[in-house]
C-alpha cells in the first residue's frame, strides 16, 4: 500500500483506539499489527509526535510481570482532533465506495 496513505490511516487508527482506553506501547502496537500489516516500530515515532502535539499524555504504571510500563492517555485536544479526522475519513470512504461500487477484483 502507498506509504503516505498508510501513515495517515495509521494516525487515525491510533487516535480511535486510544479514545477507548489507555494503552501501553507494546499493547497498542500489537492491537494495530494484528489488523494491519506494518513495521511495528513506526508506531513509536507517531506516538511521540502526537504526544508532542498534546493529543496524548503519558504516565508510568506498575505491571504485575515486572517494571512499570509507559501508558498513553488521550487528552481533550486529542479527542477533538480524532473527531475531525474521523469525519474526513468517513467522507473519503463514502466517496471511494461511490466511485468503485461493487467492482470485482479481476
Amino acid at each position: 500500500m502507498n506509504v503516505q496513505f498508510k501513515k495517515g490511516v495509521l494516525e487515525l487508527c491510533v487516535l480511535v483506539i486510544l479514545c477507548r482506553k489507555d494503552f501501553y506501547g507494546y499493547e497498542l502496537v500489537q492491537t494495530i499489527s494484528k489488523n494491519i500489516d506494518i513495521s511495528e516500530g513506526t508506531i513509536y515515532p507517531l506516538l511521540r509526535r502526537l504526544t508532542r502535539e498534546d493529543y496524548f499524555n503519558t504516565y508510568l504504571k506498575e505491571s504485575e510481570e515486572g517494571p512499570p510500563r509507559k501508558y498513553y492517555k488521550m487528552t481533550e485536544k486529542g479527542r477533538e482532533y480524532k473527531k475531525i479526522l474521523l469525519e474526513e475519513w468517513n467522507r473519503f470512504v463514502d466517496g471511494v465506495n461511490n466511485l468503485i461500487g461493487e467492482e470485482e477484483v479481476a
Partner: protein
Amino acid sequence: MTKEQFLLQLKKYLSGIAEVEKKEILYDYEEHFRIGLENRKTEEEIAESLGNPKILGKSFRIDAILGQVKEGSRAGAIWRAVFASLSLGFFNVSFILGPFAALAAVLIGLWAMAGALGLSGVAVILALILEPLFPEVIRLGGINIAFLIFASIGVSALGLLAAIGMVQLSKWFFLAAEKYIKFNLRIIKK
C-alpha cells in the same frame, strides 16, 4: 538482529537529536523488547517485526527538526534546520542550500546598500566640518554649502528608509525560508 544490535543501530541513526529525547526514544524500544520477551518472543522476532532502525531513526529526526523549526527562535532555528536537513542527506545541496544562499546574498547586498546610503550622508557632513582643518586632503571645490547639507540629509534619510524596508524584507525572507524548509521536510517525510 538481537536487541542489543537493534538499539545500537537505532541510536546511531538518532544522531543530532537532543540527548534527553534520544534516551526517551530508546527507552520506548527497550520496553517494547522487554514486554515482547515476556510474551515469549525471541529478540530476533521482535527486531524483525519492528522494522529497519535506519528508517525509524530518520522518522524521529525529521519530526525533531520540524518541532525545532516550529518552536525555536526564528533565525537561529532556520539555520539549524537548514544544516540539520543537509546532514540528513535528504537534499541535494543545490536544491536547498543553493536558493537559500543566493537569497541570503541578495539580502546582505541590499543591507550593505542601505548602510552605504546612510554613511555617505554622514561623510558629506564630516567633509564639510573637516575641510577647513585639512584643506590639503579634502576639497569640496566650493560647492554650495546649503546644497551639501540638504543633499547629505536627503541621502541619509534615504538610507534610513532603506534600512526600515530591509527589516521588513528580512522578516519575509525568514518566514519564506521557514515555509520552504517545512515544505521540503513534509515531502521527504511521506
